[in-house]
């Protein structure tokens, strides 16, 4: 197996390589006397600690020759010095405690880190491998591995040599040496046979220079040398110095005993001492331990070769193992004593490993693994697999093999259950390091993850954290897995009560989730970080994180409750009112911000403000003096009000008048929250600022940025007298949105800035938010000063001014169409100043017209009744002009004194049904005011006009008289429950006269018209134009009382003030709709409600309604009227001669163009019976009148028999009993409005009654140039058949 060359790495320089070189080193067991220890303790160290810095040799450069003949040189070498009493496996609890301590210590160091901001993703990614993983984690790993030292199934940490230390003060030192190596004190490994008790011994005499002379020590050494042999005895002198320095620079202390660091260490060791120790250790390593190991390797290798190598031995071995299978299995597999072949091979392998002869080690481990496997000695097997995996790694040979070995070892350890679990962890750590060294970070992460499953919570947390770093280091970084594993680690840390670490893990994970919409996860992270910070007492940071989760509308109700409760608890434990910028609860909809203030424009009610400004401006156009025309000349000085106008971005408001601000608050949660003390944050600077206002505008803009970061408590208004702020308390239910109107009332002049809004959530947290405006957006998007979110909510407060308040009394919400009322406008002046020069403008004159002061005390419905004496035509001619212009000036003397009320009548007429909103603006000027000369009061009303009576008129020419018309009035009651009583019908204009048909005395059969009912009435309309030539439009028509004869109804005078005004408006508006056809006549129908529907008009029992139908035209479709006149009965003696009779047809042109008319008579009767409809049919066929005639003539012959059943059949029997004489066709042209007479004659042959309708009028319009509309074209020609005219000829007695 060859490796890809690019992945070649130097295993020795990898982290794992160094770890193995440092950790898997020969162990020297130390046995020392108490006096020797005492000498060392003077330096604050024990003996082992004292030697520790010198047990690592970076450049020992010792030649080594193991099994092969080829020597090589060792460079780095390390010895592990361990007290004999420590050579035993730590019990589980102690190990746990020790590891926990490591984590705890690290958490204390991490504390200042937690105060800083969480790391950003970029900084994490840019970190190098070594910086990423906190160093304490490596320490933790090492300590975790160390807890497994001195196990039975591995020999690499079994002592290679024994160092016996006796102080020169000891009595009989030589005997002490013997005593020391007493079996009682020896570790169990040696005693129970796992280790060879025949161990290399080294004797050291420790001499304290403070206690005795070197000569004494030399004597003892000489004695020792004779007893134990000269090579193995050494003398070490310490404590030569006088206690001056501290040699902390040399790393004296292993991690384990760091607690004693507080004392001064190595005070009494001078340079000579240190050199002595160094020399001693070097000698020990290079001259004793390494040669000893070499020798042992060689011996063992020979033994192993003899017994196990070669085919014969293999077979033998197999057979032997098979035989062993029958023996009962020990729970941990068979035990192997030091003398067993397996143990010896293991020792051989381990020694070879420690002396870096990895190939030798590997071959032995492989040999051994099959044996152990056959023996089912799983722990040993796993240990050997582990070592062979490491050997493969160090050899940088087959990756696959090494990974397989590690995985095998790992799973085998796990299979053993709890006894192998920690070993599995160690194996996993090595495995992961191995993968990391090869750049397989993802695989390493999964190994860490597997370890974490087997370890207790705390360890699992550390492992998961390492896994997460591996994910981050993998290429490309798996950020999400990094985050996820950190979360898992944090959770584990928390469970094992390592809150600092938990916070650290979560904080690191935060950047992964930041900015993404993974709200569930971010909420969890933020919430837990917040909670844990709160546990640590860092409430401000806790709250900062908690705030992130408050607006969690997507969470379940229970979760929201938890979030909120915890948040409040944290805030309360903080112990002070906490101010939060941009608190998320409730959510403020900044787009909903609307400012309402009153400068020159004042409003009757807050609803009026909603009306768009352009609407008002259009209305007030003529009324309000124009602002821009103040300066006539550039030399003119600025008017006095200039400071107000110079800066257009500021608005003007009046002291004492409230500025209102609408703002929407929304509760995103499902639980209700209580919000209290909602108020504006305002600043009111004194008047002095007004003079240099122009400059300060730029300054304030600069200041704003700074201001917007500080909480409102810093800027609390010190003087409450100058400002009055409204405060609101409300409760928002789950998901509710409320619109709150906030008010601020400046009391003094100056400059008012509305900066933001503040509120208190559940009485514990103060939230505040400043109004920020995106200037760019405002510039293009908004229009109209009133509704825009101005760049600055700055106001110039000016001196108090009078302000009118007004309302219209008795204005109903719902009225019926045609309702006529008298309303009252009330204007109040609350201030002490008076206002003058009042004007008023009304948007809809069709609905509302101002009355006159005389109308003030009118008795309303009665005043309209026709007085017998009121014949005088006192209607002012200009009334129409006045009401058209819509601008109404109050009389000059009308001024409202301070504190008084002013009333003015208004006439109301509901002209059109539907939703109507009309606007009234009252203009007034102030006396003695410099800042503002005028103000306007704006009123806006909406009302619903319900349909009442639908009136339509059909006027058709009377066939029998020329100047008379039949009028059919169709009335439908469109209401649902109201009953109307018809009062009168009037036609407007003095050229018309309306009267009831003489046939029916009572015009309409019923008095009233209940809901849904329809009624038709007929009237006669007479044209009086001939008699009265002047065309006067004044309303002075004739009236017909409707209703039964006996009723005592009174006629309403339609020519009186409000009615005639409204009629003009109606006429104007309806005239827009009916264009084209010549308008003839206007009708006004007066009716009253009978009060059948009390819920609509409760206050008035009998309402007066006037329905105006204007521009009614005569519905005849033919432009001409004609009438045949003549004798109806003739007495003639037919026996003598035929009878001659003459008639006259009067033709009138009622169109507006001249008409050419041809009157044609014919003797044959038309076969169809449509004589009366002929007009209509000719109208239908329109331009094709000629064709119509032809078809009729044809039909006569064809279908004459079919007509047999027709009543007129007798007439068409034979030849006609009469014939027309004279010209059969007469042609004439009639000018508009002219009348002409055409004489006709007939000859009658037999007596009888004859219908003389067999003539036709062909007419053709002669269009003038200016009238070529569609209507004219349609009407351009036609044929009308004669009206029936019956002549009875009687035989007179001769």
């Amino acid at each position, binding site marked *: 197996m060859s490796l890809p060359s690019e992945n070649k790495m130097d295993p020795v320089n990898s982290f794992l390589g160094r770890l193995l070189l440092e950790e898997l080193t020969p162990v020297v067991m130390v046995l020392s006397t108490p006096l020797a220890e005492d000498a060392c303790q003077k330096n604050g160290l024990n003996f082992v600690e004292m030697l520790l810095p010198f047990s690592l040799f970076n450049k020992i450069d010792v030649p080594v020759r193991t099994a092969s003949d080829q020597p090589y040189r060792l460079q780095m070498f390390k010895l592990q010095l361990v007290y004999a009493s420590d050579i035993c496996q730590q019990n589980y609890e102690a190990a746990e405690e020790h590891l926990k301590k490591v984590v705890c210590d690290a958490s204390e160091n991490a504390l200042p880190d937690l105060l800083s901001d969480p790391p950003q993703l970029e900084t994490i990614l840019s970190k190098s491998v070594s910086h990423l993983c906190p160093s304490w984690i490596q320490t933790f790993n090492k300590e975790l591995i160390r807890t497994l030292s001195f196990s039975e199934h591995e020999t690499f940490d079994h002592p290679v040599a024994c160092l016996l230390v006796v102080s020169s003060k000891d009595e009989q030192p030589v005997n002490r040496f013997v005593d020391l190596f007493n079996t009682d004190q020896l570790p169990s490994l040696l005693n129970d046979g796992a280790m060879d008790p025949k161990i290399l011994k080294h004797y050291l005499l420790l001499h304290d220079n403070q206690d005795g002379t070197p000569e004494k020590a030399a004597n003892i050494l000489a004695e020792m040398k004779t007893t134990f042999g000269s090579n193995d005895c050494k003398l070490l002198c310490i404590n030569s110095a006088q206690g001056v320095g501290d040699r902390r620079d040399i790393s004296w202390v292993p991690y384990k005993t760091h607690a004693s660091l507080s004392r001064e260490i190595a005070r009494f060791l001078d340079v000579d001492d240190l050199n002595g120790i160094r020399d001693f250790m070097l000698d020990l390593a290079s001259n004793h331990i390494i040669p000893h190991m070499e020798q042992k390797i060689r011996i063992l290798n020979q033994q192993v070769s003899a017994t196990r190598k070669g085919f014969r031995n293999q077979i033998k071995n197999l057979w032997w193992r098979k035989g062993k299978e029958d023996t009962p299995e020990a729970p941990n597999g068979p035990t192997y004593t030091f003398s067993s072949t397996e143990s010896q091979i293991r020792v051989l392998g381990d020694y070879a490993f420690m002396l870096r002869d990895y190939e030798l080690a590997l071959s032995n481990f492989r040999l051994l693994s099959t044996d152990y496997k056959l023996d089912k000695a799983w722990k040993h097997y796993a240990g050997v697999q582990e070592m062979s995996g490491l050997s493969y790694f160090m050899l940088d040979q087959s990756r696959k093999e090494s990974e397989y070995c590690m*995985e*095998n070892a790992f*799973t085998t350890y*796990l*299979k053993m*259950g709890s006894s192998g679990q920690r070993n599995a962890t160690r194996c996993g750590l090595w495995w992961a390091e191995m993968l990391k060294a090869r750049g397989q970070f993802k695989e390493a992460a*999964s190994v860490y*993850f*597997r370890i*974490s*499953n087997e370890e*207790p*919570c705390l360890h699992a947390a550390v492992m998961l954290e390492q896994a997460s770093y591996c994910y981050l280091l993998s290429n*490309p970084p*798996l*950020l*999400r*897995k990094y*985050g*996820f594993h950190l*979360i*898992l680690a944090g*959770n*584990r840390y*928390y*469970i*094992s*009560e390592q809150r600092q670490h938990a916070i650290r893990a979560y904080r690191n994970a935060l950047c992964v*989730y930041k900015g*993404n*919409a*993974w709200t*569930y*996860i971010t909420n*969890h992270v933020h*919430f*837990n970080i917040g909670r844990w910070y709160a546990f640590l007492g860092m409430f401000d940071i806790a709250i900062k994180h908690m705030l992130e989760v408050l607006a969690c509308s997507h969470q*379940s109700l229970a*979760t929201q409750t*938890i*979030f909120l409760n915890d948040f409040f608890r944290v805030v309360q434990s903080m112990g002070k009112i906490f101010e939060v910028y941009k608190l998320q609860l409730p959510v403020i909809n900044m787009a909903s911000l609307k400012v309402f203030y009153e400068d020159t424009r004042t409003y009757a009610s807050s609803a009026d403000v909603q009306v768009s400004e352009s609407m008002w401006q259009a209305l007030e156009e003529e009324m309000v003096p124009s602002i821009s025309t103040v300066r006539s000349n550039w030399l003119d000085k600025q008017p006095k009000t200039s400071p107000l106008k110079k800066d257009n971005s500021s608005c003007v408001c009046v002291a004492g008048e409230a500025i209102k601000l609408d703002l929407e608050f929304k509760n995103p949660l499902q639980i209700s929250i209580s919000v209290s003390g909602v108020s504006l944050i305002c600043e009111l600077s004194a008047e002095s600022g007004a003079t240099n206002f122009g400059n300060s505008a730029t300054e304030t803009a600069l200041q704003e940025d700074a201001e917007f970061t500080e909480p409102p408590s810093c800027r609390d208004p010190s003087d409450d007298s100058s400002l009055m702020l409204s405060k609101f308390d409300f409760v928002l239910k789950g998901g509710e949105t409320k619109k709150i109107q906030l008010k601020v009332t400046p009391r003094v002049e100056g400059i008012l800035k509305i900066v933001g809004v503040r509120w208190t959530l559940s009485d514990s947290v103060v939230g505040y938010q400043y109004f920020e405006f995106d200037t760019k957006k405002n510039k293009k998007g908004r229009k109209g000063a009133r509704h825009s979110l101005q760049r600055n909510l700055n106001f110039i407060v000016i001196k108090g001014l009078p302000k009118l308040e007004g309302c219209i009394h008795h204005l109903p919400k719902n009225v019926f169409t045609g309702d006529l009322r008298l309303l009252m406008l009330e204007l109040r002046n609350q201030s002490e100043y008076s206002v003058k020069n009042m004007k008023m403008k009304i948007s809809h004159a069709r609905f509302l017209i101002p009355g006159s002061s005389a109308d003030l005390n009118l008795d309303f419905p009665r005043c309209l009744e026709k007085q017998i004496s009121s014949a005088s035509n006192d209607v002012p001619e200009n009334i129409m002009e006045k009401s058209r212009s819509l601008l109404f000036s109050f009389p000059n003397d009308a001024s409202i004194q301070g504190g008084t009320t002013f009333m003015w009548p208004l006439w109301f007429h509901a002209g059109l049904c539907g939703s109507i909103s009309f606007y009234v603006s009252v203009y007034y000027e102030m006396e003695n005011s410099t800042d503002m000369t005028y103000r306007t009061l704006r009123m806006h009303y909406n009302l619903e006009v319900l349909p009442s009576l639908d009136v339509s008129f059909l006027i058709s020419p009377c066939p029998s008289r020329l100047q008379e018309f039949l009028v059919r009035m169709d009335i439908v009651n469109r209401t649902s429950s109201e009953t109307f009583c018809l009062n009168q019908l009037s036609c407007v204009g003095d050229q018309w006269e309306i009267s009831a048909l003489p046939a029916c005395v009572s015009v309409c059969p019923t008095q009233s018209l209940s809901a849904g009912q329809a009624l038709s009435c007929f009237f006669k309309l007479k044209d009086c134009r001939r008699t009265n030539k002047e065309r006067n439009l004044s309303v002075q028509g004739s009236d017909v009382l409707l209703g039964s004869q006996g009723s005592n109804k009174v006629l309403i005078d339609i020519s009186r003030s409000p009615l005639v005004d409204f009629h003009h408006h109606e006429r104007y508006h309806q005239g827009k709709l009916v264009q084209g056809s010549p308008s003839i006549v206007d009708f006004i129908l007066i009716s009253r409600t009978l009060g059948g529907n009390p819920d609509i008009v409760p206050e008035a029992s009998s309402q007066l309604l006037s329905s105006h139908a204007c521009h009614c035209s005569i519905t005849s479709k033919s432009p001409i009227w004609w009438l045949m006149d003549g004798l109806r009965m003739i007495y003639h003696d037919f026996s003598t001669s035929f009878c001659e009779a003459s008639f006259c047809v009067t033709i009138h042109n009622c169109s507006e163009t001249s008409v050419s008319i041809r009157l044609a008579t014919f003797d044959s009767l038309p076969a169809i019976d449509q004589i009366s409809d002929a007009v209509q049919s000719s109208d239908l066929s329109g331009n094709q009148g000629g064709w119509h005639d032809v078809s009729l003539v044809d039909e006569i012959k064809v279908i004459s028999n079919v007509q047999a059943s027709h009543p007129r059949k007798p007439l068409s029997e034979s030849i006609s009993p009469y014939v027309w004489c004279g010209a059969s066709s007469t042609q004439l042209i009639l000018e508009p409005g002219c009348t002409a007479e055409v004489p006709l004659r007939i000859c009658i042959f037999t007596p009888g009654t004859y219908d003389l309708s067999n003539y036709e009028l062909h007419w053709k319009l002669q269009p003038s140039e200016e009238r070529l509309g569609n209507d004219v074209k349609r009407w351009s020609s036609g044929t009308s058949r004669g009206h029936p005219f019956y002549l009875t000829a009687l035989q007179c007695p001769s």
Partner: protein
Amino acid sequence: MQQSPARSEARYSVGIGVADSLLALFRPRTKGKAWIPELRLRGRPAAAAFATKMIVCVAVVGHQNNPLYLQSFTEADDALKLHHIIHCSLDVIDERINNPKKSGPTLNEAFLGLLYPTENYKVYGYLTNTKVKFIMVTTDLDVKDADVRTFFRRFHAAYVDAVSNPFHVPGKKITSKAFAQRVSSIVKSFGSAATT
């Protein structure tokens, strides 16, 4: 498993139970014999909490890896866990997109296949032309590939219909109820076509 005293107060933490299942979730399934059967018993019995064959969760993730739609079909309160699963799966999807050589012949295919084989779940992915990812988590451990393909095809159709709605803002969460209904019906019918 360790029972901690902190559990009672840690009402809204991942919780031991959830964490355990999370851990179990991401324990890679090892192939072959190396996995030791006893170890399985130490974890939760596989998929005991869920019905035998069902989709636990489906998600639509936008091309900026922002969740557009995430619906779980379990009764348990495991929204957080499923969010984590979906979120982590995105890493695998990213990896797959960036290493097209692995997918080889399936280069132009929307179906990404099995993303995450875990002990209790299988996570499948699907990538549309507009880089919108569909992720499906199922408890059905021996699900057929064809079933998953048909599921994603139908899901894709439903998604296209949902985003074709003129009132849908691209890149925002899908709030359409019709879509949710349709998805749940697709989820319900998952696998049934193959069995019948």
